[in-house]
């Protein structure tokens, strides 16, 4: 059941991003109960009073026996962190060969990540950009609804660029954060690493999720036609029968280079295809979050 709710084609029917995020995350979490990812850390940090809604498994029953009050244990990973999603809303993100465009998919993913983070009591923020920052929601424990609202409103428009908006966004960060960049990354690997590297200024962790449509990778076109660039409007004649193979090779080479260069620069990289369930990216994020918690 949870897998069905993680299918982007199914999620596209849900209008409300919050509901969508809750659906995704709850389904995802319920699927995790039997997985080794349960619990982010076992390092005890402190006690805090029990609040309705807390998991009763985390109540310290021995302390209750001594004090007759309910306390829950807090661990290192449960402490607040800033999680900021940087979403590329340039015109190229409007492409979709199936029922879901790249921007739709990225929005679903962003909403799910923000909701998941908020469940873990992280502060959440959002930056949308094309060739400059368009919307910026600072990280805050109360900003989930606002982020979701901005997400729901965003539409793809304008040409895109990575370096200027990311530099601008990086400057607004005042503390170490987990930064999740969602983009189709149509730039050279060097430019991408340079742009993403600007985010690491305060020791933030950067997770780059490249969102692509399956057709961008497999190039399944057969009929000769003029191809038009979504962002620039340029047109060139293309005979797919002749050029498809070369295109696929170039794309594979690009993806490999991006992954390798980001890794070398200490940033995580994940490729998300819009026909894949969201849990691939969520898993990656969680594992990244776990690693970060251990560092603290």
């Amino acid at each position, binding site marked *: 059941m949870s897998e069905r709710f993680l299918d982007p084609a199914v999620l596209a029917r849900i209008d409300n991003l919050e509901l969508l995020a809750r659906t995704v995350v709850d389904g995802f979490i319920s699927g995790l109960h039997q997985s080794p990812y349960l619990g982010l850390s076992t390092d005890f940090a402190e006690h805090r009073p029990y609040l309705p809604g807390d998991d009763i498994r985390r109540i310290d029953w021995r302390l209750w026996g001594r004090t007759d009050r309910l306390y829950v244990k807090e661990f290192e990973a449960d402490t607040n962190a800033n999680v900021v999603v940087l979403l590329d809303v340039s015109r190229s993100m409007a492409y979709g060969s199936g029922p879901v465009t790249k921007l739709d998919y990225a929005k679903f993913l962003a909403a799910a990540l923000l909701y998941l983070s908020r469940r873990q009591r992280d502060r959440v923020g959002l930056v949308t950009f094309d060739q400059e920052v368009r919307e910026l929601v600072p990280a805050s424990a109360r900003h989930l609804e606002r982020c979701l609202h901005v997400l729901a409103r965003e539409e793809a428009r304008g040409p895109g660029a990575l370096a200027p908006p990311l530099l601008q966004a990086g400057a607004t960060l005042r503390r170490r954060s987990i930064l999740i960049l969602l983009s189709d990354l149509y730039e050279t690997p060097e430019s991408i690493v340079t742009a993403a590297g600007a985010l690491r200024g305060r020791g933030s962790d950067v997770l780059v999720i490249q969102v692509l449509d399956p057709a961008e990778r497999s190039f399944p076109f057969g009929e*000769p036609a003029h191809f038009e660039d979504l962002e620039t409007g340029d047109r060139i004649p293309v005979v797919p029968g002749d050029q498809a193979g070369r295109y696929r090779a170039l794309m594979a080479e690009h993806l490999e280079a991006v992954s390798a260069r980001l890794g070398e620069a200490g940033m995580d990289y994940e490729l998300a295809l819009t026909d894949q369930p969201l849990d691939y990216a969520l898993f990656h994020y969680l594992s990244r979050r776990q690693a970060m918690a251990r560092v603290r």
Partner: protein
Amino acid sequence: MGLGFLAPLFLAGLAALAIPVLVHLTHRERKEPVVFPSLMFLHRIPFRTQRRQRIRHWLLFLLRGAAVALLVAAFARPFIRRQVAEGAGSSDLVLLIDRSASMGARGRWERAVAAARAAVQRAGARSRVAVVAFDDRAEALTELTNDRAAALAALAQARPGSAAGRYAPALQSAAALLERANSGGEVVLVSDFQRAGWDGQTAVRLPAGVSLRTVDVGDTSLVNTAITSVVLERQGGAEPRTVVTARLAGAHGGAREVPVAFALDGRVVQTVTVRVAPGASAVARFAALRDPEGIRRARVTLPADDQPADDTWSFVLGPAPRLGVLILSRGDAPAGDLLYLREALDVARDPSFPVTQRIASSVRAADLAAAAVVIVHDAPFPGGEPGRRLLDYLRAGGGMLVALGARGTLPSALADSLGTGAGVVDRGDLGAALAVTDAAHPVFAWGERADLGGSRAFRYRRLERARTALARYDDGVPALAETRLGAGHVLVWTADLANRWSDAPLHPAFVPLVHGAIRYLARFTPPPAARMVGDVVELDGEWERGRVGALESGTVIVEHPDGTREALPAGGSRLRLGERGFFGVHGNGTRSAALLLAANVPPSESDPARIVPEQLVAAVAPDSSAVAPARAGMEGPAERERDQRLWWYLLGAVLLLLAAESAVAHRARGIR
């Protein structure tokens, strides 16, 4: 076997093969652009325009080219030229040639003989050939023989006849010939393939290893008007007259005015002109003619057309048949007692019922000899000599209707089966209803409305032992009972026929009931004015029906329409009417015909509806040994075209190719 084309000019359409070549070479781009997120990588790939001058998608190209080629071939109407292979083998050949009346149509017989001769001549040197001519019967003109000359001579002597054509006897005959020879072979059927010749019900199968080839010599362009029947309508009066009505059918040709002549003994007595439209029927009605004294030869004739066999209808015209009725009543019967009965008898026309009335107790032998039926009305059955005469008359096969009424009695010879009828049932003023209990009895078959269900009976006699009641009153007492005495039939009406005990005589059904009873008791069947060629007549029965007295002992002479004479035994002979015209039958030594029979071409021979030869081939073929019908070399393009089926298959193949092309093209086009 080779391939030919009915419309070879269409093959020029093969130039259209250039179309798929051009399509594949030019291969125009889609007009609307394909939007794509980024052309970053595509910009890096060199675009080689020279590639576009080569044919890509070879499978698509071949599919399209094949579709165009097959379409062109289909329009060129290909057919398989069969080099008839019978000359090459040693299998036997049975040649069935249709000689039914329809084969006498203009040019048809000549084509049939030519095709048959060709088939015989093409037969292999070691093959034996049998020639069978058929109409409604099959006649082997030659047995299986290597003598080609004999087969050809038999064909030369054969002529179309006047009988109906039937394929089943001919095919059975061919099957029997080949089975007897215990050899495989071929049956060649040369015919015009009239639908009437094959009912599809007869189970005929050729032996294994025998194939049937059909040669269709029929055509649909004949101008023909046929006489399909003649009806005689009798009129009464002091001078009995007859109205002759001929029914015509227009088969082909445009509507036309047709003069229809009516001749008596070879002399035209009347002519009327009738307009006949194709596919429609018309009626030629002649003015009433006084009935001739004796039997006469009558003919209705049309001007000769493409099918002359059905332009003449022969029939026998004579006075209406008469069935003498002897009414026996009481001497003290009230005046008008027999009014209703006599009126009912007097109105009969075909046959008429001349009535003789006698006192029951004084019936004479001469009265009985002239009577076909005796009616005893409300009178005691006579005793003594008259009674004995009546019983003898019955035992010898006479018919008697007894209306018991108040005074009637039954003889003890009938009392055993019916009872005495002594008891009287009085139903008062309300009366009893009557219902027919045996509606299928011939008494009721004569009249369409011979049902007295609306009449009321106030009194009637009770027959205690009547086992066969044709009608009963509502209390179950028989109203009309039947019994037999010797060879004679007796009907007993338990009321009277004088509108005293029963109001049945006032009922409209009374007349047909009385007529039906007389006809039944006299065992009357109307002598047909005309018969069909192929009918078989039992001379004894016809003689008796013709009321020309008993057949003489010894032999009778039958004079055929063509003037030939044939001697047949007088008793038990059967005569097949094998040709159209008049057959005269008379005793040996007498000159004038005592019995005259007219035979005509069956109307089915004028029916232009045809059977598809393949249907016949499929029906009789043993397994898959039948082959497709071949055409006579002389056949015209229209006929040849009818059997060219290849183009259907080609069109089917084109459709399949186009479907495959769509699927392949869809795959090749990919995601737009």
